[in-house]
């Protein structure tokens, strides 16, 4: 594929395709549906506005199985055999290191949700990230816990890649703040009993538990803690507010107990404002394609996955072609232009503004976006709770600056 700026853009006929390139099976199978739930409403709003440059758009799902060895051929195949593939969401941490180079080489803009620190200073031209790195979450958890007055923390994380990513910064941040990690447990996933681990935890008498593990593991662990000792406050990460986790743990320890003891750190999104309203409306309207759409209403990852599609589409309008080799360079140009640009909140608004010859600044469903030189856009964290009526009340917000100070 040659892509020199001097060459002519490719011509496209028919529907343009965006891919959700993520695990749909395997241990991180929850990532895929979460991401697809962002893409589909975005495509629908674009199509309702008449499409991009006369093209309708659609979403496809590509399963990476959460395994680099499976993801590599999946990526090659997606690139080779998908007609009019013009952009994608993904990959996730599980397969990013193996597939980002391939996707970049294919000149396909990707909005990764890999939290891996290796991409903090990514130099891949087609790599973008709207979500903060995994390890920032650890810092946010530490800050929140410390502010709540907890001083004896227990780190209880699964031995999987994405869970362990949180641990180093959590440990150093909590210590720097003046707290003490009294026990650091790495859980082997999906055991039938964690009672011995729980006993060790109780013996260390922590006043708060930091955790991320797959739903089944945390459910077994916490329910056995409840049996043997009674629950103590739990601070989790973004995966612990996913429906499967809530369903599993809520089922195991009781939803009441969960709502009393539980908080989770996730990238902050206001989940309000005009862009969110458009997003949420489109999401709820996508009921036939997205099962139980309301579960994603406040999900910051789903929101940014939605935003990613809108941003790519707007960049195509700016470039006057869906050819990624041309529009990729214009992606930063449709966001973060604070001064003088017209703030837009949907594809339709952006399209109209561009048609009117204006510079635009897309403020997304997940909030304002500003890429740094490495095409990362990180923001604040929020701590949310859980309530039996299913809403997730916001408990606190931790600013990006506070996190930056304590990150290693």
């Amino acid at each position, binding site marked *: 594929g040659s892509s020199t700026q001097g060459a002519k853009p490719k011509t496209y006929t028919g529907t343009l395709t965006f891919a959700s390139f993520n695990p749909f099976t395997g241990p991180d199978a929850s990532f895929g549906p979460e991401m697809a739930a962002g893409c589909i409403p975005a495509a629908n709003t674009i199509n309702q506005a008449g499409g991009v440059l006369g093209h309708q758009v659609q979403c496809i799902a590509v399963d990476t199985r959460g395994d680099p060895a499976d993801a590599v051929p999946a990526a090659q195949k997606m690139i080779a055999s998908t007609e009019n593939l013009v952009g994608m969401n993904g990959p996730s941490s599980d397969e990013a290191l193996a597939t980002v180079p391939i996707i970049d080489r294919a000149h396909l803009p990707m909005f990764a949700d890999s939290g891996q620190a290796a991409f903090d200073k990514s130099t891949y031209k087609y790599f973008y990230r709207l979500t903060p790195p995994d390890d920032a979450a650890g810092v946010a958890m530490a800050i929140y816990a410390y502010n709540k007055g907890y001083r004896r923390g227990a780190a209880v994380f699964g031995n999987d890649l994405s869970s362990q990513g949180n641990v180093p910064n959590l440990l150093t941040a909590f210590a720097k703040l003046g707290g003490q990690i009294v026990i650091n447990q790495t859980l082997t996933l999906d055991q039938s009993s964690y009672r011995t681990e729980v006993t060790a935890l109780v013996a260390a008498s922590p006043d708060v538990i930091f955790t991320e593990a797959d739903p089944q593991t945390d459910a077994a662990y916490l329910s*056995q803690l409840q049996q043997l000792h009674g629950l103590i406050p739990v601070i989790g990460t973004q995966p612990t507010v996913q429906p499967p986790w809530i369903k599993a743990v809520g089922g195991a320890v009781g939803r009441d107990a969960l709502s009393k003891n539980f908080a989770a750190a996730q990238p902050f999104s206001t989940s309000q404002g005009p862009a969110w309203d458009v997003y949420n409306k489109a999401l709820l309207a996508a009921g036939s394609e997205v099962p139980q759409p309301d579960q994603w209403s406040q999900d910051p990852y789903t929101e940014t996955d939605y935003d990613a599609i809108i941003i790519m589409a707007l960049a195509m309008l700016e470039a006057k072609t869906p050819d990624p080799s041309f529009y990729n360079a214009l992606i930063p140009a449709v966001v973060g232009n604070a001064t003088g640009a017209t703030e837009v909140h949907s594809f339709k608004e952006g399209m109209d503004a561009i048609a009117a010859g204006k510079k635009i600044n897309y403020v997304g469903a997940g909030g304002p976006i500003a890429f740094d030189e490495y095409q990362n856009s990180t923001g604040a964290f929020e701590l949310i709770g859980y309530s039996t009526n299913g809403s997730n009340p916001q408990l606190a917000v931790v600013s990006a600056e506070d996190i930056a100070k304590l990150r290693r």
Partner: protein
Amino acid sequence: MQQLIPAFGFGLITASILAIAAVGFTLQFSVTNILNLAYGDIMTACAFAAYLANHAGVNIWISLVVGALFGAVFSMLLNRLVYFGFVRRGTRLFGMIIVTIAVSLIIQNLLLAIFRPTFFTYEASQGPSYQLGSMVFTASQLAIMGIAVVAMVCVHLLLTQTQLGKAMRATATNPGLARSCGIPTDQVIDAAWLVSGALCGIAGVALVLNTATFSETTGAAFLVPIIASAVLGGIGQPYGAMLGALTIGIAGETAAALMSPAYKDVVAFVILIVVLLVRPQGILSEIAAAKEVAA
């Protein structure tokens, strides 16, 4: 150190479930010569059957019976409709392992397709807790241990005291000869799958009662410890499987208490390997040894 005794207690709970499962597994192998690697997935399927009953308002212990019945019938049909066909076509031990793995893939992913990727919980309370020394057990855990003991005794009586038990062992060794002695081997094999399937079902439900939640992979994740217990005890030895289950269950938990929980399984499995190096046929091994001479 003072965690050691409670850990021992926890080991007992794991061991009970492991024992029920391992005895069923070993029974299948000893009677039908099939190393059924779909066993874990059948456990999961039984857990789902019990889940459906439980959520239709049935008490958890009756749901357990539902799970056991489902396991019995499902296993028997699986053998009749799939496994036995392959055996008849001349597929041997290791070919059959691949067949069972294919079946495992199918069951697990059908469950996934039907129930979707999420997690399930029974409507059941653990009941009051009882303190035995420094070990704590809930009522349902005690019930699980009780079920395990009863199941073990029944299996032992079945195999040693009844004509059916002898017929099962005879069929396993030499089906043709068994038929010519008047044993209706097809029915005997059905019976073996019914019994081991019921154990599989009980183990599946008990496992979920223990872990609180389950998904389509729950049983499969438990398979290797089951196999380890069966092998440790000497494949085909119900008592051996019990002993193996105790060793694996307790070793795992005490290792978790003494060193890192991360190496719980590693320690249990290393014990298995060391034991086999000393006693290559497992702890109890008469039958196993005999099979070797015959081989």
